[in-house]
C-alpha cells in the first residue's frame, strides 16, 4: 500500500534501497572474489589496452573493462571499441611505435599515483 503512495508521489521514481543494496553487493563481491587490489586491477586494464592497441586502433574514450558476476563465477568483461577514424591503421602504427619506445612505464606510473587517494 505504501508502495502505491510512494509511486504516486514519485518517491520511488528513484531506485528502491533494496535494489541499491543488491547492486552494491554485486559490485563489492565481484571485487572481493577476484581479490585483486585496485592498483593491480588498473595496471591490468592498462596492459590489456596496450596489447590490443598494438593491433587495432582503439576508441580510448569508450573502453569499458570491468568485473562481472555470473552465479559464483567472476568474469572480466571488456568492451573495447575500435576507433572509426579513417587513419585508424596509421594510428595503430603510431601507438605501436610509441609502445616500443616507452614500454608502459608511463602508464603504470600515472595509474599508481592516481590510485593513491
Amino acid at each position, binding site marked *: 500500500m505504501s*508502495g502505491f503512495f510512494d509511486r504516486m508521489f514519485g518517491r520511488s521514481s528513484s531506485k528502491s534501497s533494496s535494489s541499491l543494496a543488491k547492486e*552494491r*553487493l554485486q559490485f563489492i*563481491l565481484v571485487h572481493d572474489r577476484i581479490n585483486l587490489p585496485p592498483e593491480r586491477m588498473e595496471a591490468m586494464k592498462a596492459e590489456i589496452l596496450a596489447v590490443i592497441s598494438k593491433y587495432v586502433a582503439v576508441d580510448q574514450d569508450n573502453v569499458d573493462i570491468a568485473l562481472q558476476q555470473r552465479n*559464483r563465477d567472476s568474469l572480466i568483461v571488456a568492451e573495447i571499441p575500435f576507433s572509426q577514424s579513417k587513419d585508424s591503421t596509421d594510428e595503430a602504427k603510431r601507438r605501436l611505435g610509441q609502445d616500443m619506445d616507452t614500454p608502459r612505464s608511463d602508464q603504470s606510473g600515472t595509474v599508481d599515483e592516481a590510485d593513491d587517494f
Partner: protein
Amino acid sequence: MAAKVVTVTSGKGGVGKTTATANLGVALARLGKKVVLIDADVGLRNLDIVMGLENRIVYDLVDVIEGRCQLRQAMIKHKQFPDLFLIPAAQTRDKTAVSPADMIQITDKLRPEFDFILIDSPAGIERGFRNAVASADEVLIVTNPEVSAVRDADRIIGLLEANNKGPAKLILNRVNPDMVKRGEMMSADDVTDILAIKLIGIVPEDEHVIPASNSGVPVTLNENSKAGQAFRNIARRLTGENVPFMTLQESGGFFQRLARLFSGQGE
C-alpha cells in the same frame, strides 16, 4: 547411530548464530532426535544462556580437551528434553585453547550416540571459525538481509569452498516482510541470487526472540512465534523432510491468513 555434524556460522557477528543453534537444537529434540550442542565460541560463551542452562555448568569444552574431566561430565542435559545436551564453551579462555583436531576428536566420540551434533561458531574467519567447521558434515550460514552481513557470508562461502566444506546452506534471519515489500530490504531471492547457495530457511524479525532469550526458553517453544515456526521448519528440513517455504507476506493480510489456514503453517 551416526550423527550428522552441523555447524552454524556467519562471518559477521550478531546475526543470529547462537539463536539459530539453540532453536534448531530444541526443535530437533522435539522431533525425537538425539542432539548435542557444542558452543565453540570460546571466550564469549552464550549458548548456555539462550538455552537457560547457565547455572548448571560445571565443566566446559576446554576442560574436556585439557583432560580435567570426561566428555560426559561436560555434557549438560536439558531439563525438558532428556535427549538434548549442551557442551558449553570456556568463558575465561581464548580460541587458541581449542584446535581443529580437538574438535574432530570430540565429535568423533559423540557421533555414535547422537543424531545431530550442532556447533555454534564464533563470528570471524580465524581460529574459532576453523575449529567450528573442522568436523562439519554440513554448514549453515546465517546472515541478515544487509549489505555487510551478506558480504561476510560470501567470504565464508568462499573459504568453505576452498576447503571442500561446501556447499553450505543459508539461513536468512531477521527478515521484515513489510520492509521487503516496500523495497527497503533485500528479499530472500535477492540474497540467494547474490550468494548462489541453497536456502534452508527464512526467519522473520520477531519480537518474541528477545523475551525468549530473557527467560532462557528458546523461541521455538513459543507456538505463537513466527521465528519459532521458521526454526521448526528448518529442523524438519535438516532431517531430510521437504518442507515448502511459506511466503512471508505482511502479517495481517486476509489472503495471507487464508493461505496460512490452508497450508496449516506459517514460516
